[in-house]
């Protein structure tokens, strides 16, 4: 599996990277917008569970930067031209919609986006809702979107349940920040009992659709609820919403007969839009040559990362070792220790973006210094902190040689032929004694299966 394999499997994954989207899910929102026109006239938008920020990016580019993103035209399906305009830093200031306010909420931090205010907070807390409204100067939002999904366990019923809880959490904060008539969009898992959930959204919104963008895989259970025209019933207190909308208390039976409303299911994405299940060649017609691109935003510190961040004591120990080694060879590094110290510490504290510049500048200096005297450097390596490691590598190398040496290449050694004299020489020619051949054939035909073979050894 090369790094291209994901590109081969998924057209939208590839396209997202090519057009600078943080994740392929950006296309899902674009396709929903294409169908429902949810972004038109929106000046205040909230993105819940925003990280890594691809939906916020769509809001930022469409609402704040005022980009024309037309995904209807087949030839210009992925608006590569529009993108090049954006990427040139000379984006006209005048085009920006300064009156647009976008608030992104997540527990985790994400890289900044133009026009997006970040709140690092918990969507289940009322204080977060208040903070959002403060950013809108007391006004309420036109649009709330949520693309959050839980850690999927593989036990589908549990995953679907947790996703529904997440949606309810998002809805809870939405009721506190959304203006009447506003729109709410959130991810749902279409599975067991998902109609229970979507049905109840009708008590809060005039229109509810379940949308499936073409960029969402056919085989995936993911879909989106598009709830338009928020109208809370009289006397509805959003702070007390949870008991009001207790999905959990209902059962299938409540959905039979008259109570049952079928939520319309809408597929989004133009006829000409790419289909996420279809296999496309890497080289598409009418496009520049294919080129592998690294992901726009690689994952930040997954829980299974086994390289823990170096702690202060780790750094101290590392520096101490270098210092000792330097002193031993009389290299005047002692005085430089402070600068090295600082740079190493900085290295571990700066952001990913800054790391490169920082490390390159400082380390180049040191490398030059220490290279002045080759002998000294060698000595430092021989006794320095790497000495143990080098020894080990040598040992392992040696071991491998012994182990992997095929029998045939073992050096030919003189055999003392005198010792062989007592042995009877066996003729090279094949025996023609029929008695012996018969004996052999009898034996051969018995096979050598250890457990069905008759052992002759008792003879």
């Amino acid at each position, binding site marked *: 599996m090369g790094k291209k394999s994901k590109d081969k499997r998924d057209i939208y994954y590839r396209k997202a990277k090519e057009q600078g989207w943080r994740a392929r899910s950006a296309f899902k929102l674009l396709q929903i917008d294409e169908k429902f026109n949810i972004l038109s006239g929106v000046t205040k938008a909230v993105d819940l569970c925003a990280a890594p920020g691809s939906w916020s990016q769509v809001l930022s580019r469409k609402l704040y930067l005022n980009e024309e993103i037309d995904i209807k035209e087949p030839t210009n399906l992925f608006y590569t031209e529009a993108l090049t305009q954006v990427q040139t830093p000379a984006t006209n200031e005048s085009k920006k919609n300064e009156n647009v306010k976008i608030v992104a909420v997540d527990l985790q931090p994400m890289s900044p986006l133009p026009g997006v205010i970040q709140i690092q907070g918990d969507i289940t807390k009322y204080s977060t809702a208040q903070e959002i409204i403060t950013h809108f100067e007391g006004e309420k939002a036109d649009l709330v979107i949520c693309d959050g999904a839980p850690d999927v366990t593989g036990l589908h*019923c549990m995953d679907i349940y947790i996703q529904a809880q997440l949606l309810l959490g998002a809805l809870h904060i939405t009721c506190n920040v959304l203006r009447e008539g506003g729109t709410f969009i959130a991810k749902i898992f279409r*599975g*067991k009992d998902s109609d229970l959930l979507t049905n109840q959204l009708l008590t809060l919104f005039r229109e509810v659709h379940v949308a499936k963008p073409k960029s969402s895989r056919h085989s995936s259970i993911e879909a989106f609820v598009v709830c338009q025209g928020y109208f809370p019933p009289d006397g509805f207190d959003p702070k007390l919403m949870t008991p009001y909308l207790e999905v959990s208390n209902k059962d299938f039976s409540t959905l039979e007969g008259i109570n049952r409303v079928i939520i319309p299911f809408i597929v989004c994405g133009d006829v000409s839009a790419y289909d996420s*299940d279809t296999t496309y*060649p890497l080289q598409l017609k009418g496009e520049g040559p294919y080129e592998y691109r690294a992901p726009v935003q690689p994952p930040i510190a997954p829980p299974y990362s086994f390289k823990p961040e170096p702690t202060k004591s780790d750094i101290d120990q590392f520096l101490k070792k270098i210092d000792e080694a330097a002193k031993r060879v009389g290299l005047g590094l002692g005085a430089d220790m402070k600068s090295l110290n600082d740079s190493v510490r900085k290295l571990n504290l700066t952001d990913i973006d800054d790391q490169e510049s920082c490390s390159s500048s400082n380390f180049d200096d040191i490398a030059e210094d220490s290279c002045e005297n080759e002998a000294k450097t060698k000595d430092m390596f021989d006794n320095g902190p790497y000495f143990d490691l080098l020894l080990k590598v040598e040992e392992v190398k040696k071991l491998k040689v012994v182990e992997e040496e095929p029998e045939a290449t073992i050096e030919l*050694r003189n055999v003392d032929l005198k010792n*062989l004299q007592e042995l009877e020489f066996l003729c090279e020619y094949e025996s023609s004694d029929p008695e012996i051949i018969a004996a052999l054939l009898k034996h051969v035909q018995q096979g050598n299966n250890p457990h069905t073979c008759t052992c002759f*050894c008792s003879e």
Partner: protein
Amino acid sequence: MFNSKTIKTDVTSLHIYNNLLLSGIGGFLHIFELNTHNLLCRRNIFEGHKIYGIITSANRRESIIYGGKNIAIISNLENLKELIIKQSHLLSDWILDAKWIDNDRNIATIFMHNKVTVWSENFVKLWTAKCEEKCILYSAKICHDYTENMLILSGTVFSDILLWKPHVLNSNGESPVLTRLKHHNGVIFNIDYNQKTGCICSASDDRSAILWKILNKECLEEINQHNSENLRINISCQVYGHLSRVFRCCILEDGFVTAGEDSSLIIWDFKGGLLRKIDNHQGSVWSLAYNHSKNILCSGGNNGAISKFNISATQKTTVISLLQNENPKHVGLLFSQNIISITEKAVFNVYNKKLEKINEIAIHKDLQNYNIMAVSSCRKMVALAGFSGQIYIYQEINNVLKELTKCILKNCERIYSFHWLNCRTFLICQNEGKMSLCVIYKKRVCIIQRFVLPYSKERWSTCAISFNEHIVIGDRKGNIYNYVVGQETPLNSCKKAHSNLGVSYLCSRNNNILSLGKDGVLKKYIFYNGLLTCIESTKTKLSWLAYLEENYLIAFSANNFIISDYQFQRVLFEYFCGGGHRSWSFLNSQGNFMFAFIKQKSLNLIEANLDDYTPKDIIQGYHVKEINSIQSIVISKQLFLISGGEDTVLRISVLDNNSNIKLLYNSKVHLSSIRVISVCNLINKINEYMIFSAGGRAQIISWHLSIEFNDHNFPIVTCSEKGNFYEPLREDEAENRIMDLAIIIINNEIFLFSGCSDGYIKIYLVDDNLTMTYKTTLTYKHTCITKLLNVSINKLNVLVSMATDGHVVFWNTFEIINEKKINPISGFKIHQSGISSTSYRIINNNKLLLMTCGDDNSVVFTLFEIIPINNKLEIKLLDNFVEDGIHCAQITGAYINNNIFLTSSIDQRVVLGTLCVSNNKITVKHLNKYNSAIADQQGLDCLEDENSLNIFVYGNGVEYMKVNLENL
């Protein structure tokens, strides 16, 4: 109406109660006898909801069963015939744990929203406590037995474990968090607690498990928010051993066990030392049950398997030093269990195991510096051979090793390898591939036959066996040659049967030849007209296969020696020996095995009882991950299932009298997932079938299946791979998947149509030997094909293709196979998006009733008329009926016959209805619905017999149901 006969899916709960094993599979409670593994009772507790927990009490003869929001009480476990469900309730939130408290009078439950409710035995809500921290929990544990001292451990999505007491309240009336265990770096999936020792064990998304210890557990009684800082909890150890997420953990008497997504179970001691790693299940492990007095651990996996382990299995290690610090070169185990070895200085020793004493047998000075040793399979004959063609044969008689004969080959050339064929015949290999077949006749060695190994770079043999008149030899470069006595050159050869790492072992069983390779592949051959023919190739998870005996496959993986079982290649025993590049010997006698090897100039011996290490299957597993296709066939009134899925394994199973699914054959040849299986009876042959399986990487494999029955009417399956159509990708090509297949037989010619994800339909001609030859390709649009149907009406053949664009497209099959200009006849947009399942029937010999179901939740019945006009076909749409209210997710299963229809969906509902066509009008009515616990359903298969439907719903597991048509 739906009568569920069997279900195989995630085993989400296990509980040992006396001599019973209670397990939750789907919504069904299965009760097994722990010793005999007999299924005593099977009861549907929650329709369509999985059982996540089974709780019994020491004093009360009633157990709590919960799953999702459902909870039930069952009684009469002592008399299973009268087992009753006393109560069943739907609560307001997902239940994570439940417990009998207050002298077993009340029931406590903890919910996903960090809330505890206590109920009376009649399920009257007594009181509720909320934790001040409101967040979603993935796991929780209720500890202690009384309301007053009840302690909750809740594992949050934010990596914390919260410790709180429902009986301690703050001024807001909520329960404060008394302490927060922070050290994990991911969701907490499971928490276990041992009241006696005050140990807490937690399993997490971060691939680790942590054992915590409450140092002053005596103060737990009076702890509250004001003195909570007094509580002292330490981390005893944090263990890393799983390759993936850790889902379950359980504290044992003298250690703890963890299990996870990587399918392994690891037993640790309290200090975090790894005691044993068991790689038993083939997928995630979802449940554990432990019984200390019986020393038994049971585990349940996502492949539906339940296994039982003896956790007290022990091994004995002996290190034997040779006299005078000699450097041993070769080691062997004899029938007497004595260990022989020859050193670099050619000292031939025997270690008497009973006396624990080493004896020198001989010093062969001529074997100094170079010698080889071989022990016959009966373990009574030993051969030593040298650099100048010397051969010394020893024989063990009455546990004493004696020299039988010796000789030197006249050419005085080095002997590269020596293979015992049995205890009187052997093969030797010399320079330039010279092989000599020898026999020991009247205590003398005679050469009978010369063979020549074909040229290769390292030209020597590595293993050999005799089978009837054949001698089969494997060489260093991975080739296998078939010789007969009387001919110097091979009859035929299997070039590159294994990679150039070489063939490591050959043996015969059940008239087949098996070969093992250092490439981790196991191959099976038969003699077909005297020629060695490969019929099966299995890539195991093990990297270096070394030896096979009975059901035990011996292998090396990195530095470890591994014993695994032959059928499933599960690791039973693993030992760090340093790797396979050393002399070793393995002997198994009556379940006790010995493994001798050389390490650091000493002989090492490991002994253990393999039976103790072998897990016992209480229920056999089925597919791991999603099943994408099941085809059922009936032969001699027995139901056979041919299935494949994301785990790339093709399985053939039979339903026994108790509707258990019994595996008959499995093969892991597909490089990627199997998406579709097509089965067709071979022309003019009974009980013989052709099977085509296809899926990821655009691979199609054809199989020949024949089923016979033995005297007990038990089926004997022979399935062999015939053709493997797979084109490797070019660098810039995207990965193509085959989505559906259709077999079409016209004028005794077999055509295979495959629908691909790149929008192409490819056509192959299939010959008598089931090999496929590519003929042509159809295309109309760049959209993923999802379904193909071949419809023959009134001698007309029509191909129907469906795709993710929701279109149904008709093609004239005759035109296609005659390779005329190929354009579709016509296309109809029926669905908004992808069509995921379809079924059809012919009405009045000229009309086609097509049922299509899609991703858009709708079931559509469309009536077409096929009209032949001047050698052309015309398709006319007569009527269309859309039903989009019966499912709320993608509909993946569809079936129609003359008057009924069936649908199944990812929403886990199986719907049965009637349909009627009269005057070109379709009317549909739904009758009944069943909620299946099979998640992520990928389809259904239905077989009709005289008066019932046999329905298989599959996806994340399989459920078999019967519907009696007489009641309709």
